[in-house]
């Protein structure tokens, strides 16, 4: 009986700790289901327009990677195709973070030891975490069901879709708890289990991209890779078309197996011990780690790799999208008529337009990558690590310019990889509607706006350090909203012009106006120079 009481207390404590976090996850996932279903009905209200989009998607592996498994053009099936893999990805992330937060993280901080010293023991807290995580995933399933039903989709299909999301979440709850036994740090457990969630997403993406379309052209059978992914299993329910329940046995079985393994390890190991210890670090530094720039590179490598992969993926997608759309029969539909009108008015090929649009998004990624280099300056200062560096023979200016150089290099790298991706996918296809050189021109056109997001936050950092991080992201968000989405919501051109992204040149194959780029480059260089000069007189500290 004591165990039941302890279980109830510990579950209550978990609910209390997570009440906001969990509410945001569950409501966020439910809202995503609702809004995406509503948006799809507004944008693609007709069966024919959905069928057209599906044909484009099936011809474009990059879209299938990001979306899902096409199972017909009905509104329910189309919504499931568009959004399920995201919902499942989010449920997986929520579950692994929850599992680690209430297991390894507690052991690491020492609070698990306090609990383990009470009659609750070592196993009851794990049971409470399991109960808590299961409840969270039931709520996620209900939220998805409610979201789809509220958007007017078939309740039966919505229930299958919700159950599939929750089942994927449960599978990763088990995976997260197992990783918490294997890894010695919460960072390691979080990182490895989140990587497994992403791996599941990518595996099903490969399965979808390599699937075989049926005769109708809107229904696919997934490739074998999908069968190695819990998210792929969820897709196999064919919600809204087949409404199959049996594939959900697979994620539930994975949950059971990983929980069983976690339980065996938990019963045998010491509190705080792990199967794999923390990886040892180097006893001595590599010869290259000898300058502020080398340190900045070391600290930023992870973030640069992340944004660069985003740039490469954006480039691959950009290069293949135009030919995929062109390959679809453009006979007679309103959507293609609009596209054709745009093509004629701009005098550019469809491929060129797609590359311009997607490169402007990649330009935001490049700007974010550069921005993070400047934000790191502030993080270093606030954490106190900058003091160690600046007490060595390193001038403030050398410190600042090191990060500015790194930021510039990473902005260029992200755009270079986007260009490389687009170039590679164009070169491997038979699409000759665009001069390949123009790909590099379009990539270069994004650089000045991104450099503004390096220079302006640097000036903020020098003049008003405390505001660096908040203002940095706010400026980028404002620039994206005004410059990239401003046109879609019909904002006044004067307001849109406040965003650097509005001044990015759009190469169209004939005459391109580069004046905006030169102006922005000049502003970025000037602002950066002012920041460097002012830095000479600035004190550094944690305040």
């Amino acid at each position, binding site marked *: 009986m004591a165990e039941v009481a302890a279980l109830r207390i510990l579950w209550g404590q978990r609910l209390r700790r997570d009440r906001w976090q969990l509410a945001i996850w569950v409501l966020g996932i439910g809202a995503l289901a609702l809004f995406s279903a509503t948006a799809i009905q507004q944008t693609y209200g007709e069966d024919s327009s959905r069928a057209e989009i599906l044909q484009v998607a099936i011809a474009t592996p990059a879209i299938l990677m990001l979306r899902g498994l096409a199972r017909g053009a009905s509104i329910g099936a189309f919504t499931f195709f568009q959004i399920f893999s995201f919902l499942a990805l989010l449920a997986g992330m929520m579950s692994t973070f929850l599992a680690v937060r209430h297991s390894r993280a507690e052991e690491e901080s020492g609070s698990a030891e306090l609990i383990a010293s009470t009659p609750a023991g070592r196993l009851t807290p794990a049971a409470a975490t399991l109960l808590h995580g299961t409840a969270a995933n039931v709520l996620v399933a209900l939220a998805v069901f409610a979201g789809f039903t509220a958007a007017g989709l078939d309740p039966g299909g919505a229930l299958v879709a919700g159950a599939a999301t929750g089942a994927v979440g449960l599978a990763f709850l088990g995976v997260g708890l197992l990783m918490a036994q294997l890894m010695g740090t919460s960072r390691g457990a979080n990182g490895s289990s989140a990587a497994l969630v992403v791996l599941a997403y990518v595996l099903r993406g490969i399965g979808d991209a390599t699937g075989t379309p049926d005769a109708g052209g809107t229904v696919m059978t997934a490739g074998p890779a999908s069968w190695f992914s819990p998210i792929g299993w969820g897709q196999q329910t064919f919600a809204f078309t087949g409404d199959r329940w049996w594939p959900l046995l697979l994620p539930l079985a994975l949950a059971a197996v990983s929980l069983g393994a976690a339980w065996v390890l938990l019963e045998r190991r010491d509190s705080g011990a792990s199967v794999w210890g923390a990886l040892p670090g180097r006893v001595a530094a590599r010869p290259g780690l000898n300058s502020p720039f080398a340190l900045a590179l070391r600290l930023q490598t992870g973030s640069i790799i992340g944004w660069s992969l985003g740039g490469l993926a954006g480039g691959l997608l950009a290069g293949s999208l135009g030919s995929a759309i062109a390959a679809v029969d453009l006979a007679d539909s309103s959507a293609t008529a609009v596209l054709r009108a745009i093509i004629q008015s701009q005098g550019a090929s469809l491929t060129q337009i797609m590359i311009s649009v997607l490169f402007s998004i990649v330009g935001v990624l490049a700007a974010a990558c550069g921005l993070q280099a400047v934000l790191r300056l502030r993080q270093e200062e606030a954490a106190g690590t900058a*003091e160690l560096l600046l007490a060595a023979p390193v001038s403030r200016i050398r410190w600042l310019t090191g990060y500015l150089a790194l930021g510039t290099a990473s902005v260029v790298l992200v755009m270079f990889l986007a260009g490389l991706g687009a170039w590679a996918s164009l070169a491997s296809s038979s699409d000759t509607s665009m001069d390949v050189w123009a790909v590099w021109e379009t990539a270069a056109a994004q650089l000045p706006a991104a450099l503004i997001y390096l220079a302006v936050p640097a000036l903020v950092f020098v003049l008003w350090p405390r505001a660096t991080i908040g203002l940095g992201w706010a400026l980028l968000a404002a620039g994206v909203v005004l410059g990239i989405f401003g046109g879609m919501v019909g904002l006044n051109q004067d307001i849109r012009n406040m965003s650097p992204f509005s001044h990015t040149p759009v190469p169209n194959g004939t005459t391109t106006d580069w004046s905006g780029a030169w102006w922005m480059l000049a502003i970025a260089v000037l602002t950066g120079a002012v920041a460097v000069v002012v830095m000479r007189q600035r004190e550094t500290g944690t305040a």
Partner: protein
Amino acid sequence: MDTIIQTVELHKHFGRVRALDGLNLEVQRGEIHGFLGPNGAGKSTTLRILLGLAKATSGTASVLGLDPWTQSVQLHRGLAYVPGDVRLWPNLSGGETIDLLSRLRGGTSGRAAEGTPYAQRKARLCEAFDFDPGKKGRAYSKGNRQKVALIAALATDAELYLFDEPTSGLDPLMEAVFRRETLAAVERGATVLLSSHILSEVEVLCQRVSIIRAGRIVDGGTLDSLRHLTRTEVSFAADGVDTRALGELSAVHGLTADGGRVRFGADSGRIAEVLPVLGSLGVQGLIITPPSLEELFLRHYGDTSVAAEAAVGEPGAATARRRHLLGARGRG
């Protein structure tokens, strides 16, 4: 005299708060100079100005003959600094951080091959401080983070070491290692400014001290000269001893008898005048306690503490005398 650090009327204001209020500090070559004061007295602010991390509102500072604000890079080639709360890069190992800081200081080449003097010294220090350099920065405890900065500082030859409460978080054994290594550095010809509130550490290591209070140096000099100005505490068993003869001595202050013991304070410089009287009285259970740095310290910070007031007695006059002496030293 070879002055390594000199500040003249150093002021540092943060808005209305006067963190430093006319600080005059002098550190001579080859000494270990204790910089004493409680939290918030301005120790760290002073060190940050001496490092060129902060700029003085007014007044001048000179370190190794250089202006710390405008010539900080040149200055930092000759000094090593250990902050009181060392923060490390979470994804760099301790060994990597030590190497990085040493390389930046120019104490070693990029190829820290085994067998070079730097590598040997680093290995020796890691062993002496019982430090595992192979862990990531985030995994170290407070004491181990201190060790990273201490090893990085001591692994290269610096002309001047600035230590800001360097042993916080270290256990007593490691404090002893720190003392030994600091003395070794001074033997090599280095100068040390040791900011601390651990009086025993300062008493063991330092020849001279400066006591800072509310942004000013309120007392300073050699430990002996400071002790001279304080009172030695004397007590013995009462046992019906007639203490009138003691009361007539001008070197004796605050004569009391309670709990079976007679107690008084004697001017430390005139203790010899008291001893014959004690001898003639034939006192038993005599205890003579020399003034500790702690007493000296309490004397300056004790004005909020009744106990300290009682121990010191007539603080106004004594402080005035000391101020006078300090002024004379400052000019000399």
